[in-house]
């Protein structure tokens, strides 16, 4: 069995948001006290390395140490500058025209799982989460962001060019 501090680090690494001690204790099948001690251990273990343990209102997450902030900024700039891939543009178009829309609908339209794509677009600030759908499981709805509209030079979604109609199909008939 790996060390508790290593197990905590693995969990905090994959968590997208700060996690509370209770959730960590459940995942590790141990007590809140043990987790608390383990977090202290992890914090000192991380000293001198590139990551730090950050605590905010009893929720914990990993963050990069401040000395890496310039590197990180350059990487994010480089990522933001790289052009959107075709799949990303395709996903964005679906969200723009069909949004607010669930991941399941996007997946169905594209024929592939869109998790990574959605995360990427969210990170670039091009899409936002907008409430949940009135369906079983209340799935998250996605919509394009203000940033997206600004980047494509629109002031509102109404200005989107009309979607090519299915009539192009019937031309041949």
């Amino acid at each position, binding site marked *: 069995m790996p060390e508790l501090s290593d197990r905590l680090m693995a969990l905090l690494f994959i968590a*997208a948001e700060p996690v509370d001690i209770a959730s960590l204790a459940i995942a590790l099948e141990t007590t809140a006290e043990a987790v608390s001690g383990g977090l202290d251990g992890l914090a000192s273990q991380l000293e001198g390395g590139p990551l730090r343990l950050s605590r905010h*209102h009893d929720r914990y997450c990993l963050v990069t140490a401040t000395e890496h902030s310039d590197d990180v900024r350059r990487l994010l700039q480089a990522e933001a500058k790289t052009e959107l891939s075709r799949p990303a543009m395709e996903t964005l178009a679906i969200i723009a025209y069909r949004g607010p829309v669930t991941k399941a609908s996007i997946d169905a339209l594209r024929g592939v799982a869109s998790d990574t794509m959605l995360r990427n677009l969210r990170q670039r600030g091009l899409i936002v989460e907008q409430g949940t759908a009135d369906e079983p499981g209340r799935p998250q709805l996605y919509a394009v962001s203000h940033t997206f509209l600004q980047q494509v030079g629109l002031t509102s979604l109404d200005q989107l060019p009309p979607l090519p109609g299915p009539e192009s199909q019937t031309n041949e008939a």
Partner: protein
Amino acid sequence: MTFSVSAPAFEGPLGLLLDLAEKGKIELTAISVSSITADYLERVSVMSDLEPDELSDFLRLGSRLLYIKSLALLPREAADEQAEELQRLTLELAEYRRYQQAARTLSGRLGAQTWNRSAVTKLPTEELPMPDLSLTILQEAFSRALKRAVPLAGGSTLDQELTQDEVMGRLKQRIETGGFALSEVLDAIIDRYEIILTFMALLELLKSGEAIVAQTGQFGPIMIEAAHARA
């Protein structure tokens, strides 16, 4: 949409043939092909839930087996062709078998996976969506404060010129300097008018995303903080 043949015993025709050969400890030879062909066709005939496409794949291999078998009935010249066909099928089976085994090894690894950060979109949480929660908490806190406060008295010394912008400015300043407990602010106000202004200003700040409401536990103090302090 079905992901695969429903709980199939065999990956496909080659899987079935391989299974028959291995169970019977038979090598594909000119002599054994006859009996294995019979077994094979019998098994295919009882596969009831095959889709037409899948059935045709099974039958294609069946007809190859029948062809090899039939060559034995022909004069000697056919023997070479039979040997060739047999060798081709044996090689295909051997190649197929390698991947079948590799697939079993990989299947055994399925439990222990690695995770990367981008695989995770959001932690499952039982919390209500943040805006609603904030609003409920705030509304409760403010209605308590309103009950305690005095209605605006005409001749009071209170600052009646107070505007929402001013209240907003004060709140922003406190947020920028590390946030505050809501009770600290509310307890200091005795005027209903100012409480209402404060409530509205806070709503504005929450809506614009400049501030967030945080509460530790169900009965902990309600904290108002800068949104970027969390990032």
